[in-house]
């Protein structure tokens, strides 16, 4: 991966007002690199869902984006509570979000399914009490 461009970001806990900043920044950078608009949109949507999840559920975390001529790989790592039942969490409409989160228009249980839908591969590693790392790839 000698020609990979690597971007690293911190997602801050509880910063609902700032959720989306990382995704917006990645979107602008991909656009500047000349990545096709439909790919940029998929990456932006998947990343935003992941970013919001980190703010809602996981006390923030770290996002790494690796861009090569072949693919865009996003690694979203948090030290949150972990996902007790990944299969359930992947079901559209299943949500554990709080009322406060729902009042903001989120928490409909569409996040993880939407991330999967917009990426070519998605891998979830999670351990209760330790955290979750989600790796997503969008091929160019």
């Amino acid at each position, binding site marked *: 991966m000698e020609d990979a461009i690597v971007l690293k970001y911190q997602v801050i806990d509880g910063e*609902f*007002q700032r*959720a*989306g900043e990382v*995704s*917006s920044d990645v*979107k602008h950078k991909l656009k500047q690199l000349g990545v096709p*608009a*439909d790919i940029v*949109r998929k990456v*932006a*949507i998947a*990343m*935003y*869902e992941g970013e*919001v999840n980190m703010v809602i559920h996981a006390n923030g975390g770290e996002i790494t984006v690796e861009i090569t001529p072949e693919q865009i790989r996003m690694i979203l790592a948090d030290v949150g509570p972990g996902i007790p039942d990944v299969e359930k969490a992947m079901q559209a409409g299943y949500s554990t979000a709080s009322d406060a989160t729902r009042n*903001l*228009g*989120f*928490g*409909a*249980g*569409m*996040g993880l*399914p*939407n991330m999967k*839908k917009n990426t070519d591969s998605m891998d979830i590693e999670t351990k209760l009490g330790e955290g979750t790392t989600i790796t997503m790839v969008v091929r160019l």
Partner: protein
Amino acid sequence: MTVKELMDKGWFKVINEGDDTERDIEKVFCCDLLSIAMGKAPAGCAWVTVMGNINTLAVATLADAAVVILAENAALDENATAKAEQQGVCVLATDMPIFDAALMIHEALNA
């Protein structure tokens, strides 16, 4: 119909012009639940909603909506207004209900 052509009809109050008013509007999209909008809003849509918080702007930017129309006099709060300016998102507003506003745009698109 471009965003500018929609603005020029004078139906809606311009909250923020945004930086791409020459963009074509492809479709009308209605939804207030951001989780759904993120997954379903088509690129280049005119998105009619009553949800006027900062996350609406993030979703509009990332899902690549052409213009956001706030219906039912829904207000854009201060943070969201700043975000709209910063991200160059076109935001319009009306006291019309969502359906009426959306239908008007739809009919103009298909005229």
